[in-house]
């Protein structure tokens, strides 16, 4: 199969030939097939786990994905605590609430990150700058509570590593107060903008049947009408004690996914506020020393969906087997059906709609189906997507 670069489109020069993440095969404007090639971020963490102590594994899994930095360690410690009898039986209540607060703060920062990137892909760079501007105070809160903007090192088997100090609570509340009007603004700006609606409605549709067949999770699944959320279905954290909502849409398009993420951020603020009000007194660590033989499953609702960890222990201080399944592993595969049938200019935003790791979406190539010649790269596709939005805006003006 030969790859020839024919016509560079856009002001950027095409990247040289190389294995791509997403190779789109096109006939004219339409995407007729897609190859998805992954493995560029594979670091062998499951194998590394087998040579580390249970305590050390939490630090390793934090670095699976920088954006979901608390979901993976949380799912991991839940898997180990499953062997010990479950989080509710083993972990002090105060630690459970702190875990919930950290995880919900993560949901806000992750969805804001996504909103910014999605805005950039469709040509709303102001949305990008504003979304990431409002993300900064959330990262400041992480730094105050955990010591780092990213990679929090909070989750520990049997509890959390750091407490939330009393004087931190009003600071968190104030930050959330400032975030509420910003989220209202995003909600209005995105959901009421006729150009954005036109750009995203009916685009990149994943039907309910396809969503079931690909076992997708998270907002990707809920946008296609699947009523699932690990926080409610397989309760962990403080969620069973709190009042909160799940958002389901039926259209399966990108607008639905966007709407769900914005609403989830507002809901996260409500959840955090309840946790701060109800934060129990007491210890934050059960001081677990030994892990008995057994097997356990831990799962959390990461911003992208269900994060699934399985641990097998033989009673020594290292896991025998650690299986990690990130939510994007299921969701990215569904692009096989969501992108095919759409146009090239919708490809970038459709690929981005499942909220994969940022690195994945920058490595895309478009190939002409009849002769396998490469005609565009990721930067060209982003430009095409932005141009489509500009055309829609002109038509409505």
């Amino acid at each position: 199969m030969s790859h020839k670069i024919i016509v560079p489109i856009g002001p950027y020069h095409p990247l040289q030939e190389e294995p791509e993440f997403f190779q789109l095969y096109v006939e004219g404007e339409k995407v007729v097939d897609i190859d998805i090639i992954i493995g560029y971020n594979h670091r062998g963490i499951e194998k590394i786990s087998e040579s580390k102590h249970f305590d050390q594994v939490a630090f390793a899994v934090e670095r699976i994905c920088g954006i979901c930095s608390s979901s993976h360690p949380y799912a991991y410690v839940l898997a180990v605590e499953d062997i010990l009898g479950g989080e509710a039986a083993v972990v002090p209540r105060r630690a459970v609430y702190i875990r919930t607060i950290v995880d919900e703060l993560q949901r806000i920062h992750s969805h804001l990150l996504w909103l910014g990137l999605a805005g950039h892909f469709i040509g709303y760079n102001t949305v990008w700058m504003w979304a990431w501007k409002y993300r900064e105070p959330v990262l400041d809160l992480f730094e105050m509570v955990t010591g780092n903007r990213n990679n929090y090192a909070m989750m520990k088997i049997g509890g959390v590593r750091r407490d939330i100090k009393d004087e931190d609570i009003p600071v968190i509340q104030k930050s959330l107060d400032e975030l509420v009007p910003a989220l209202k603004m995003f909600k209005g700006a995105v959901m009421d903008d006729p150009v954005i609606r036109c750009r995203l409605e009916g685009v990149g549709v994943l039907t309910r049947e396809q969503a079931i067949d690909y076992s997708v999770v998270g907002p990707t699944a809920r946008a296609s009408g699947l009523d699932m959320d690990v926080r409610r279905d397989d309760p962990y954290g403080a969620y069973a004690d709190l009042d909160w909502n799940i958002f389901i849409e039926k259209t399966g398009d990108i607008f639905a996914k966007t709407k769900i993420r914005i609403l989830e951020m507002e809901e996260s603020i409500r959840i955090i506020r309840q946790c701060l009000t109800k934060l129990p007194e007491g210890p934050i660590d059960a001081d677990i020393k030994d892990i008995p033989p057994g097997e356990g499953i831990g799962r959390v609702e990461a911003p992208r969906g269900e994060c699934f960890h399985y641990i097998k222990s033989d009673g020594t201080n290292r896991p025998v087997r650690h299986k990690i399944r990130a939510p994007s592993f299921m969701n990215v595969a569904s692009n096989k059906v969501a992108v095919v049938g759409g146009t090239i200019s919708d490809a970038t935003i459709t690929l981005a709609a499942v909220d994969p790791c940022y690195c994945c979406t920058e490595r895309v190539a478009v190939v002409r189906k009849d002769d396998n010649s490469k005609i565009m790269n990721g930067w060209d596709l982003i430009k095409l997507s932005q141009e489509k939005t500009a055309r829609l805006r002109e038509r409505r003006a």
Partner: protein
Amino acid sequence: MDIKEKIKEKFGNAITDWRQPSSRRVYLGVSRDDIFRVSEFLFKTIGLRLATVSACQVSSGFEILYHFSDDKSGTVYSLRVELRDRDRPCVDSITPICSAAEWVEREIWEMLGITFKNHPNLKRLLLAEDWPDGKYPLRKQES
């Protein structure tokens, strides 16, 4: 009839070794010959979601766990298949039932060397192209 009863009624003695260590974790033993039809029943008839498939090497060979999630009750039903062949372990692919299994099985194949019969696209997923054939990173003797 709840899900456990439906499974018992349909498959009877084909399910060995029922274990329920906690309220939302069920582990069922299934033979290699039955895994396709039990998976099909859970996915298509009962409507459970395939969360993932995990596998590991054990002293007698290999063990594969098919994790199906009942999102209504939050229960994970994990089907355990034991493969006693250390040299050429293989089992039927469930990708024809559920497209989500395609990537999951490819990863197990390249990491542990378990072949999935009738898999539509059994090729490398995560490992580099120049990774040597026959070397499986998650097997215990590999370093």
